[in-house]
């Protein structure tokens, strides 16, 4: 194993920072979902990296569960965006402020 744990953890920190930037600045609902995906991937990368250096199988198992749950989250999130788009004809979250039907 030529790479060290700290390198993977630093890449993960960079991805987390980019995701937080996206969540703070963007108002486009789909782009905010991109940012959430990037943050989830940073967390999964951390799990697998620490599991490799322990070494223990638990981290990989947890990462697999996390990937599956993230798939469910994206499906529901995109359905919510489609419903909101149909209602407001826009994907700007500033327009979603009044959540009345």
């Amino acid at each position: 194993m030529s790479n060290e744990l700290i390198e993977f953890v630093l890449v993960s920190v960079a991805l987390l920072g980019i995701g937080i930037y996206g969540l703070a600045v963007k108002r486009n609902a789909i782009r905010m979902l991109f940012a959430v995906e990037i943050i989830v991937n940073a967390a999964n990368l951390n799990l697998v990296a620490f599991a490799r250096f322990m070494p223990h199988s638990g981290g990989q198992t947890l990462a697999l569960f996390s990937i599956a749950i993230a798939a469910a989250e994206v499906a529901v999130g995109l359905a919510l965006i489609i419903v909101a788009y149909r209602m407001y004809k826009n994907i700007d979250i500033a327009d979603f402020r009044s959540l009345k039907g």
Partner: protein
Amino acid sequence: MADALFLAISVLTIGSAIAALEMRSLVYGSIALMGTLGGVAGFYVMLDSPFVAMFQLAVYVGSIAVLILFTVMLVKRELIFKKIEDPKRKFAGIGLMLIVILALGAVIMDSGIKTISTDSDPVDFREIGGDFLTYYWPALILMALILAGSVMGALVLARREDTIENEQ
């Protein structure tokens, strides 16, 4: 020290993560997001976890990215190419990103994990399969139920009521 392959994959991952958020077109943005997810799969291969890498490619690059692409196609053309963001918040967001990266990076560099490296053999993927079917079986069943429930919930949410009324 990091080798060339690691550096290449990290440049691909971080660069396409920035591109996914900053590209003007949402279609290109979602393709750049595919690059990020594929780069993370490459990291999993480097970490000797081919099972997780395969799962990442199948679930993230294969299905989630395609689902996002189809949703982008359902949105009006002008909205795809319009940049919707707060200009006032832009610099605050960049500052927040730098603070998070520098603070967490400083804490990590200062901690003991800087020197951790391993020569031990990687975990066999057969062990993961065994874990799934023995120790984690209730969680596996719960996850299947959650997936089925969330897919049904997504279908119910995205259903168009006006077309159903027209048919009747």
